[in-house]
């Protein structure tokens, strides 16, 4: 993550890719870089006992030991990532593994009714609109 995220960021800052990338994409990438880099720095500065104490405090809601700046940054960045992730496209990489569970069956009554209702709605496009006619009626003309 620490090696690949900066590469992605540099790639998204260079032409022509940067002409396509919206601001929201940079936000997630910066959070990932903040999360991974602060984690590595924090690990270098603290010992494993401190890590155990922090985790225990988070899990069992007990008193947190004194955090260094990079630890706090790591926790905040991770929390923000967890919060934002469901609103991003990254979730699709997980959800795509389960799409086989969502079966599209045209024989299902709900879909048939929905399509039947759609066909009876009016065609509103300016070049083919006749306010009296539905999609099915125009198709049969």
């Amino acid at each position: 993550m620490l090696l690949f995220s900066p590469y992605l960021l540099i790639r998204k800052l260079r032409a022509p890719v940067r002409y396509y990338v919206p601001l929201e994409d940079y936000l997630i990438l910066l959070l990932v870089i903040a999360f991974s880099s602060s984690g590595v720095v924090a690990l270098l500065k603290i010992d494993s006992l401190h890590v155990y104490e922090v985790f225990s405090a988070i899990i069992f809601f007990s008193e947190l030991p004194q955090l260094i700046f990079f630890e706090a940054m790591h926790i905040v960045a991770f929390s923000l990532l967890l919060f934002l992730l469901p609103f991003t496209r990254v979730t699709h990489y997980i959800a795509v593994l389960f799409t086989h569970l969502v079966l599209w069956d045209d024989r299902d009554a709900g879909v048939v009714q929905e399509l039947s209702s759609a066909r009876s709605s009016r065609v509103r496009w300016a070049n083919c609109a006749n306010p009296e006619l539905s999609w099915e009626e125009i198709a049969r003309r």
Partner: protein
Amino acid sequence: MKLSDFARKEGKLADLESGLMELPEPYGKISDRISHLKEAEGYASDLDGIVAVDLKWRPKGEEEEKELVSRFLKGLEKLLDWEANWTFLYPLKLSLDYCTRCKSCSNACHVYLGSGKKEIYRPTFRAEVLRRLVNRMKGNLRAKFSGDIEVNARLILRLAELAYRCNLCRRCTQFCPLGIDNGLITREIRKLFSQELGVAPRAIYESTEKQFRLGSSAGIKPEAFRNIVRFIEEELYERTGKRIRIPVDEKGSEILLIHNSGDFLSRIENVMAFAVIFEEAGVDYTLSSEAFGYDAVNYGAWFDDVQLSRIALRHAEAAVRLEVGKIVVGECGHAHKAMIALADRILPEDCRIPRESCIPLLEELVRKRLNIDSSRNDFAVTLHDPCNIVRNLGIVEPQRRILRRICGQFREMEPSGVYNYCCGGGGGLAVMNSLNFPEFRNKVSARMKFSQILKAFRDSLGPNSRNIVVAPCSNCRSTLRDLFEHYKAKEICGIGYCGLAELVANSMVEYAPFVEF
């Protein structure tokens, strides 16, 4: 080039006079020059000098420009509204929302690669323009955060042209890690222009209009069709010495076979081949001489939902009136998609007749009912996979099993199957022959396909060779015909083309070879 240049930059955005992808030998040193039309003639040609939308619709003043922008934005609203655009709204919205701009689609796109990697031909470039227009519609804050673009007449004219630089082949979708459908986005842009502004290339619009007025997109009226069928029977007798009756309008048959009507004019060997195969195999089938019943074409699949639904319904109604068991679609790729896949969304319950591809049927006949001599097809053969048959319908293996059975020298193109490149004529580009558009097709969109063909036959190229590209799609054959004529492929490399049924008929023991390659 920035996306904002699409609306602001004057002059052409891509120069197609140089920098195209290099072709393999013996064409490596040929430089293709594209002739350009002057903008003063009134066509919107400042995208890349090529004109696809051959209407003089450039606005003539500020008032007309404002009206164009206003109508376009109304159309854009309808594109994202369920009631107005229920047909493909969900996959469109998903494709607009989920793109990560990774550009995997670009390196999969034959138009982008063939052009020499010109920026405007990236699948995601076109999609991103639409995406930013949609962001604008949702509000200025959203636009600033997620991407913005200026809306003006220049952008609209260019977007209409850019929508016809895509073959709708879905190779980009095949390679996209998220399955974003840039082909669908392009097709929806075309729909917006057609259904709201009444703008579409004349060739595809007028073919559809001819279908309604005369009965077929090729302009063949029902009476003329019946005469052509009689002519084909006579021609078959002359070539094979056998009397073969082609049944027409026979009620209660098991199969209604519908060809692309262009084959009755420009490639009757394909129709003859089917007649010979079905006669020998004892298939209970019929053609129809009713309007729409003898023309599988449905150009609405490329640009207009209303036309798509009207034509699909008429195909089904012709079959229902003949009381056939099912429709079998002949060798026509887009008709496969329109009739077999898309029509599922459109046909009401009383018209839900089974629709199938001819290819698995041919495979079954070759395997079980025909006497085949593969030495009759003793020349180099490769297969062009039509996009609509492999990628859009998943019919990949049956045609290969047929070719392995009937040809001794069958070799695959690289890549093949669902990864095959489009012929360059998909999405309507095959039938758009006005102004300088054929140059774009021959030199840019079909470039990758020509490169594939040359590489597939690299060990047998030569003026005295016979190298045949099998293309089980009528429009692909038209594109290959024009492509080979443009590059003199037959004279220089001995390359020709044919349909799948023709090669099957050529290998049948009971009949003297009658197919001219």
